């Protein structure tokens, strides 16, 4: 049994590398060997003898009452083992716990629709068959009779009292609403030289990982144990939901997450499907597997939060933002499967990177007849940061000021760090203005302006847009108590285990799942750094398995947290193991523990130069232990829980430290817009990122570029668009457009390094990127089309939208003949 230790406070910035200096090196990832040779093991690669496959029957309607389901014909099809409807499943499982306070806590949410369907693609029945082809055949034969109801397709009308109700049990479409008020908002508006009114819409999209959701459950009737393979990236947070729905004690459930082919948050809401395959396996006594189709993912996986802002900004004529007030409507779709967490998570960046003190936002989360929303890269913060960047552009444009100068005037300054925002969040260092200047230099702004002028004279429209954003890492779960004070969540923590075996080999395992961020590499670097080894000499357990990996209830890969939270846990565990090795080595070398240096796989006395290989330490401690005094600890397995020093925010004033540390970035985009077709050509894209100290700079750069491209394609390509009748208009990669290699230029990245004063090792965490590209591109397109005087309120800039904005407008600077 390994000793669990918890840290009362944040782990200190480490002393200079005792051993090998592996932290900070861009080594190739360990994972890349199996991934480049086809030996990765993703969920669908896991094969169990006798596995049955499922196919789902989906609702073709956005909103309808289920009159009847006829499964007779389907049940008689070849290879079919069983067909279950929502009614059948309801008898076998309990509904999912809801995060919302009353009345929305009374919503009944099951893996399959019961009584009603509430979005196109919602599963209503499931066929289990010998193979996936036979299951799909039979699913087509399930007959469902519906009474179609009027759908509710946007958040603002869903909130109105006359809207049709999705969940009759609660009598309202409201998931949650509440007012966040910080500072003296009315005072700010009284002092304003100018009040800007705007409406912005952040559209619905997701980051569409290439590997789809999947789950494989195998229930052993002999032991009563369920083994659940899943590519959910927050599996132990979901475990209470899964166990209680299945009415199984959690010690009867083993969770295994193999390699995950990307998630970007989208795989957190797969728990209804995890429960479905589990209950089917328990019923049928054989393994049951679900592999999602892309059409299913797009219709019924996870969409990012769609948000509408009605906002007013109080501004001084020098461009200083004094205050913001207004309403935000979050369209959360048909069920609240992670919501209404999004109704508070934005508050991690409530004031973005700006110094103004006054904010009043009435936030509404409402049900609509669309796919349930959930975490998507930049979850709930990207929407809010988009609002700020667009407001900065509007302030500049209305006052005839430079958009960069307005940001600079309002930015929190480097000499004010660490800076506490009016809602209690603390920005832990950085130089926002310098990052902005660097982006302007990288773009060579003066020469771009000259080029823009010359091209305009020839009827071509070049534009440049610059935007800034925060990436918050290490969230304090207690923020959900702002929306529901009774929720049993607070703080954040992560667990890592580092241990040495009898042959002196070192192993490491931790709680976060790996979905492409190179966790095995990063963990090996930190442990090697602390123990004087090479990363290749550290064995990092792949994936996650609740039987072999340590974890806490916060474990998982989300919210840019692994370098910060996992890093703290790894550091704590590795240092404690180092201390124990030093004690044993000191005894054997007849010296003091402080005299022992770990280097090149040896424990060496600095004083005498005498050394022992780690294999001797492991061998003596674990197999030849009478060489050591009986009161000496021979446990070479250390489990460490890292736990930052958070407090519970006040439910009443909604203030508190909502997150531990903040990376920031400034992005610059150069576009050319074809005024005839409305097509945006992205010419150049640059980014400055500051995520503090980097454990592996190549991994960081990959995250920064990847996040930038998700934002670029979200702005220009992807939209989970619905028709007024509730039909999803983007149901495959034919019409849900992800960026190809021809759609994006090579993103150019530079790094600033301002070590975090809050996170361990001075790291801030990286990955989500704050959706910086969306406002940068909106700004660039507006800049390109400024002679036409058009502005955009939407985050999605399709040719159609641009064309319709341009209709009937001529450029103010006439083109020469």
């Amino acid at each position, binding site marked *: 049994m390994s000793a669990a230790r918890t840290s009362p406070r944040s782990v200190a910035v480490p002393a200079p590398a005792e051993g090998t200096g592996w932290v900070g090196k*861009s080594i190739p*990832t360990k994972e890349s060997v199996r*991934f*480049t040779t086809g030996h990765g093991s993703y969920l669908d690669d896991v094969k169990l003898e006798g596995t049955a496959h499922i196919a789902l029957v989906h609702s073709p309607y956005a909103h309808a009452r289920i009159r009847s389901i006829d499964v007779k014909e389907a049940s008689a099809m070849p290879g079919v083992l069983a067909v279950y409807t929502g009614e059948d499943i309801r008898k076998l499982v309990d509904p999912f716990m809801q995060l919302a306070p009353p009345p929305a806590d009374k919503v009944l949410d099951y893996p399959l629709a019961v009584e009603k369907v509430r979005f196109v693609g919602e599963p209503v029945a499931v066929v289990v068959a010998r193979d996936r*082809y036979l299951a799909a055949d039979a699913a087509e034969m399930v007959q469902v009779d519906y009474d179609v109801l009027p759908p509710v397709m946007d958040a603002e009308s869903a909130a109105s009292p006359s809207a049709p109700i999705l969940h009759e049990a609660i009598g309202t479409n409201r998931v949650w609403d509440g007012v966040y008020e910080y500072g003296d908002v009315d005072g700010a508006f009284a002092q304003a030289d100018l009040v800007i009114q705007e409406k912005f819409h952040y559209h619905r999209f997701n980051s569409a990982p290439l590997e789809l959701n999947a789950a494989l459950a195998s229930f052993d009737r002999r032991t009563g144990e369920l083994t659940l393979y899943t590519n959910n990236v927050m599996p132990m947070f979901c475990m209470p939901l899964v166990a209680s729905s299945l009415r199984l004690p959690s010690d009867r459930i083993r969770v295994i997450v193999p390699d*995950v*082919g990307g998630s970007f948050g989208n795989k957190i809401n797969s728990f209804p499907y995890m429960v479905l395959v589990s209950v089917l396996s328990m019923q049928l006594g054989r393994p049951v597997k679900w592999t999602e189709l892309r059409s299913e993912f797009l219709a019924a996986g996870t969409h990012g939060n769609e948000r509408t802002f009605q906002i007013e900004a109080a501004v001084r004529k020098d461009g200083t933002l004094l205050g913001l007030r207004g309403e935000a409507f979050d369209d959360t779709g048909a069920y609240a499967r992670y919501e209404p967490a999004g109704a508070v998570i934005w508050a991690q960046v409530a004031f973005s990177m700006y110094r103004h003190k006054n904010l009043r936002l009435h936030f509404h989360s409402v049900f609509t007849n669309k796919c349930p929303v959930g975490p998507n890269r930049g979850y709930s913060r990207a929407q809010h940061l988009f609002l700020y960047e667009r407001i900065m552009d509007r302030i500049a444009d209305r006052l005839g000021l430079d958009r960069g100068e307005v940001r600079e005037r309002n930015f929190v300054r480097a000499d004010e760090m660490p800076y506490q925002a009016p809602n209690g969040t603390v920005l832990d260092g950085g130089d926002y203005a310098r990052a902005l200047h660097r982006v302007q230099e990288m773009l060579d702004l003066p020469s771009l302006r000259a080029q823009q002028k010359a091209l305009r004279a020839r009827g071509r429209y070049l534009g440049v847009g610059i935007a800034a954003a925060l990436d918050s890492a290490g969230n304090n779960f207690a923020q959900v108590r702002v929306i529901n004070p009774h929720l049993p969540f607070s703080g954040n923590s992560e667990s890592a285990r580092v241990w040495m075996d009898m042959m002196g080999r070192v192993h490491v395992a931790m709680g976060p799942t790996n979905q492409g961020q190179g966790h095995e590499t990063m963990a090996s670097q930190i442990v090697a750094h602390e123990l004087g080894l090479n990363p290749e000499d550290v064995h990092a357990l792949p994936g996650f398995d609740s039987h072999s990996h340590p974890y806490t209830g916060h474990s998982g890969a989300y919210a840019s947290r692994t370098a910060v939270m996992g890093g703290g846990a790894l550091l704590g565990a590795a240092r404690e193991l180092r201390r124990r090795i030093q004690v044993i080595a000191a005894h054997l070398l007849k010296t003091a523990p402080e005299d022992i240096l770990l280097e090149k796989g040896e424990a060496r006395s600095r004083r005498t130069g005498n050394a022992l290989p780690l294999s001797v330490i492991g061998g003596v401690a674990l197999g030849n232990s009478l060489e050591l005094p009986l009161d000496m600890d021979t446990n070479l397995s250390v489990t460490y829980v890292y736990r930052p020093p958070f407090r519970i925010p006040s439910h009443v004033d909604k203030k508190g430290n909502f997150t531990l540390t903040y990376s920031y970035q400034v992005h610059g985009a150069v576009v050319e817009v074809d005024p005839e077709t409305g097509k945006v050509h992205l010419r150049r894209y640059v980014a400055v990122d500051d995520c503090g100290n980097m454990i592996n700079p190549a991994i960081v750069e990959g995250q920064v*570029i990847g996040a930038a491209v998700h934002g670029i394609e979200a702005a220009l390509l992807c939209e989970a668009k619905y028709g007024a009748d509730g039909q999803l208009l983007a149901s495959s990669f034919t019409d849900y457009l992800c960026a190809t*290699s021809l759609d994006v230029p090579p993103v150019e990245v530079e790094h600033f390094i301002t070590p975090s004063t809050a996170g361990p090792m001075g790291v801030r965490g990286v990955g989500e990127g704050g959706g910086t590209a969306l406002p940068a591109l909106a700004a660039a397109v507006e800049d390109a089309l400024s002679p036409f005087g058009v502005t955009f309120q939407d985050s999605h800039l399709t040719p159609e939208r641009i064309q319709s904005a341009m209709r009937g407008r001529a450029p103010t600077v006439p083109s020469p003949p």
Partner: protein
Amino acid sequence: MKRKVSLRVNGEEREGWAEDRMLLVHFLRDELNLTGTHIGCDTGHCGACTVLLDGKSVKSCMVLAVQAQGRKVETIEGLEREGKLHPLQEAFREHHGLQCGYCTPGMILSSLYLLRHNPSPSEEEIRRAISGNLCRCTGYVNIVKAVRAASERMATRVEAPSTEETG
């Protein structure tokens, strides 16, 4: 009704059973247990299932297993030679040309097809060659770098002839 399908995969004679409607990608993954070939969509857009069929790059979800009868298939599992990574595999590692690794096999097979026909491609040619393969993690920057590095490495080092190469 199932029929026997025999084909040459990575230089080895293999056989398995397939219904006429079975996709080649399912045959490779489920019958031959070559799970390095992945599935990311249902419509032939994503390229995760790219393999070489008689030396030509194809999306194996767009080919029926029975259509591959008697033909030569190259998958990601066949690229290593005597325990040594192929220059493309090396370059993808060294240039951090992957994150989650799910698109990587298809991406490498598309790049291999390119380099066999165009040993020193320009950036534009590389981007065109992999435009049928979606990568959701990297933004393509390091993939392009990796393919270019592999082409340079292969120009100075003769690639061991592929068991299946048809030119």
